């Protein structure tokens, strides 16, 4: 155990985490050069494209240190986005130390700060390292001062690295060996293993990545997942080098995988504890919680013929993603589909993209909405995931909306803009602290305002410099109303949104204008109305098309004409027929584009 180091890397997107991890693997001979596909750790295509890590991964490396001993370095990768803060905390809980990687040409970002605080809370040792020192714009002194001020850890002697050129990589490995503590724990105590991640493999079922805290885990042993209280016999254990490599046993202090015939990922949730069925631990490891989705959207197949395959795809996706939920929903406008729950907007985008890409489905997604706590006159409280489920106003007493605690880090020159934005988004300022050039702002904001376009706005008012992290804190009462959209006087359920009453008027008007722009002219006039209850607050009309007929057509070449019509038809296929009106998919997301300025 003396020769094991378990650690994570905390870094903002693009600050070079994956490149550095690749260097470690190369340095320790984990893979031959030809096996090093671009970046090994981000194994999903989507991750590679977006430069972020969605699933946690791990790699066990053998490092021969300068002291002559060989150490087992277990790097536990963490998801790199605000939507996945719980997963990050579980990855960190499996470590004794964390490397804080900061781009020496840029500086500290809010998300890294938040993750550092989590690591500090969990008692981890943090080693700051400045990456990209080969860049001419690198400014190590400024950035280390910023680390000290913003995060409050000693950064007077940071490691200087260029993951790109390889400079300083060995120093980092040495620091990992000498500055991080070895794990503690007892081989003889009853088994306690923290589930850091789990995913579904088509051949072996669920694979869980664990950190063994106490005891040992080996094939044939019976283990129990403590929160779900389900027991399984272990088939295989092993480590990732990064290739999956079977071992005889995983012992206290080690990180590795366990395969034990689990078919359903929900019984081996991130944060849960495995223990021995015959000699169980008295208590599970601390910190387990059920992750609850925060953002909901209706997702419908464009063609109703795809419903079955859509349902299968959701089930498969769920095998790998226990944070994602879905339940059947039917919409008058969009037919049969599912109301899906996501951790946040990025999570939603990822799921949607995977469904379209990996399963070849054509989907319509409605505007995302948050969970509302609804108090009715009969004293009952319920939680609704869909604006359409809002009870009629006569039964409605109060609507409460989820509020988040948002931490924003921004250079001082943009702080005014950011505050203006937060106030526009109905935020309440909680604190404002100067750290040199950086300002740390804490706001309470309604989640619904953040869900729509907050990220983009924040980036634009700060020229991309502001960074953001949040957690959901509580529900608060607010004067909310449901805004409906009527197309040719028919309410389109999938277009309803819940908005603040002060903003409803403007919102409705803007939405009606946007819809007019989006709905193409067709053979009939299309009346678009925005209404609250029975009161119409805005109206626009998409005027009827004058004609749609090819001017000249003489026998001859019909194939060209046909291709043109096919193209037009294909465009319409992606539209949804509501009554006689064809509505393009963008219309269902128009709410997102309503500019509340």
């Amino acid at each position, binding site marked *: 155990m003396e020769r094991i180091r378990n650690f994570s890397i905390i870094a903002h997107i693009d600050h070079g985490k994956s490149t550095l991890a690749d260097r470690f693997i190369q340095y320790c001979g984990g893979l031959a050069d030809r096996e090093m596909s671009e970046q090994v750790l981000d194994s999903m295509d989507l991750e590679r494209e977006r430069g972020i890590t969605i699933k946690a991964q791990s790699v066990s490396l053998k490092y021969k240190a300068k002291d002559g001993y060989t150490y087992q370095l277990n790097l536990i990768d963490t998801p790199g986005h605000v939507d996945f803060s719980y997963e990050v905390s579980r990855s960190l809980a499996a470590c004794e130390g964390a490397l804080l990687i900061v781009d020496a040409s840029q500086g500290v970002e809010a998300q890294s700060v938040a993750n550092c605080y989590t690591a500090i809370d969990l008692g981890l040792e943090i080693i700051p390292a400045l990456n990209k020192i080969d860049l001419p714009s690198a400014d190590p002194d400024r950035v280390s001062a910023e680390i000290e001020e913003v995060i409050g850890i000693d950064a007077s002697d940071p490691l200087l690295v260029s993951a790109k050129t390889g400079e300083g990589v060995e120093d980092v490995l040495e620091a990992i060996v000498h500055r991080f503590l070895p794990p503690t724990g007892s081989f003889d105590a009853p088994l306690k293993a923290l589930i850091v991640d789990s995913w579904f493999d088509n051949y072996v079922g669920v694979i869980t990545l664990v950190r063994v805290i106490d005891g040992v885990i080996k094939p044939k042993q019976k283990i129990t997942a403590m929160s779900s209280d389900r027991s399984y016999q272990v088939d295989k254990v092993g480590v990732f080098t990064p290739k999956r490599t079977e071992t005889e046993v995983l012992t206290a202090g080690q990180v590795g995988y366990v395969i034990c015939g689990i078919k359903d990922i929900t019984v081996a949730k991130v944060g849960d504890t495995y223990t021995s069925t015959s000699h169980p631990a008295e208590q599970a490891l601390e910190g387990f919680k059920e992750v609850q989705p925060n953002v909901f959207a209706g997702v419908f197949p464009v063609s109703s013929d795809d419903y079955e395959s859509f349902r299968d795809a959701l089930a498969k996706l769920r095998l790998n993603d226990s944070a994602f939920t879905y339940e059947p929903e039917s919409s008058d406008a969009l037919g049969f589909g599912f109301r899906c729950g996501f951790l946040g907007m990025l999570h939603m985008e990822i799921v949607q993209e995977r469904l379209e890409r990996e399963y070849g489905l054509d989907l319509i997604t409605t505007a995302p909405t948050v969970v509302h706590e609804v108090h009715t006159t009969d004293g009952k409280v319920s939680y609704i995931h869909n604006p359409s489920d809002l009870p009629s106003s006569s039964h409605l007493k109060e609507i409460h909306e989820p509020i988040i605690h948002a931490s924003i880090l921004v250079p001082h020159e943009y702080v005014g803009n950011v505050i203006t934005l937060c106030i526009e988004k109905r935020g309440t300022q909680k604190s404002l602290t100067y750290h040199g050039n950086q300002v740390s702002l804490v706001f309470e904001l309604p989640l619904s305002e953040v869900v729509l376009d907050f990220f983009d706005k924040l980036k634009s008012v700060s020229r991309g410099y502001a960074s953001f992290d949040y957690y959901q804190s509580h529900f608060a009462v607010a004067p909310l109303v449901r805004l409906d959209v009527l197309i040719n006087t028919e309410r389109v359920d999938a277009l309803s949104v819940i908005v603040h009453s002060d903003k409803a008027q403007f919102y409705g008007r803007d939405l009606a204008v946007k819809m007019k722009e989006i709905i193409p002219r067709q053979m009939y006039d299309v009346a678009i109305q925005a209404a609250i209850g029975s009161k119409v607050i805005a109206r626009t009309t998409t005027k009827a098309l004058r*004609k*749609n*007929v090819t*001017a000249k057509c*003489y026998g001859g070449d019909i194939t060209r004409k*046909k291709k043109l019509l096919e193209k*037009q038809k294909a465009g319409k296929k992606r539209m949804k027929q509501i009554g006689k009106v064809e509505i393009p998919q963008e219309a269902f997301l128009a709410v997102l584009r309503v500019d509340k300025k």
Partner: protein
Amino acid sequence: MLEVPLSLYVHIPWCIKKCPYCDFNSHELRSPLPEDQYIDALIADLQQQANIVSGREIVSIFFGGGTPSLFSAKNIQRLLISIEAHLSLASDAEITIEANPGTFDQQNFAGFRNAGVNRISIGVQSFSNDQLKELGRIHDAQTAIDAITAAKSAGFENINIDLMYALPKQTTQQAADDVEQAIKLDPTHISYYQLTIEPNTRFYQHPPNLPNSESSWDMQQHGVALLAQHGFQQYEVSAYAKNEFTCIHNTNYWQFGDYLGIGAGAHQKLSHVTSGEILRSDKPKHPQQYMQQALKQEPLATPRVLQQDDLVFEFLLNALRLKQGFNRQQFEQRTGLMYELLTTQLQHLCEEGLLLVETDRVQFSENGYRFLDELLQRVLPESA
């Protein structure tokens, strides 16, 4: 015995200058016109196919292009003689030639007429010099007027004027002026069609500033009214004729009749005499390649059999362009399919008020006529 009417189309693929809106198979003349050689090739093409249509009467011939009037009357005559030798031409066959006012020649017009051509279609497009320039035409308004006068002096009684509207920066008044000018010249037929931007044209790459859909709609409404006032009845989307001078050749296309097509890139559609299958084919597009192959007696095209779905679609695409639509007998004879099969398919369009579907006839409702392409998209067969 099949009674589907048969026409003959002859393609002449050269122009002095390619117009920026034109997506037809036409090539700018960069070397002397290989007139004799091309006529030889057309005759060879004809000979290849004569036996497929033997015994069937040709109701019309159309020399299209390109600019057929670039060819000498002598050569057109040579071809017509050969056509008569290989095919049976109806005594009252309509024989049309397209002419560009920019290249007209009184003598040649008379020569065409003497050779047996009895209809001339003059590509005027506009009587505004500014517009003509914008459209890249090589003639001006006066030349256009002169060409029509010349056609009349040459003995043509059946004259069509091609006129476009919704031209770059055109006003409704200007469009109406063009129509009035055309009417004044007293042709028998006017093709009044909207300028549209097609892929693979210069306008597609550099779009001109066109009137919006409201103005072009006004132009059309206005034009239709003016034409009607002067006895030009609309019988197809863009075709207007005086006193039964409807174009037999084009009407045959629209009624899904058969046609042979000879010349570079020419398309043809023929019903198989015994099987009733409909076969489409097209000739090599490039003039040089076409001539080489034709003169070497190589086969020029491989026919494709139309599938049932396509058949219905293509029939409607053509037949519904006609104001009067089509009747049961036409549909069944031209497609070999049952009329009821079609009417069931069209029922929902009927309910929407686009179409009038009767026991014996299908035609557009007054409102539906404007939306042919919408309708066609709905009956378009699912592509693979």
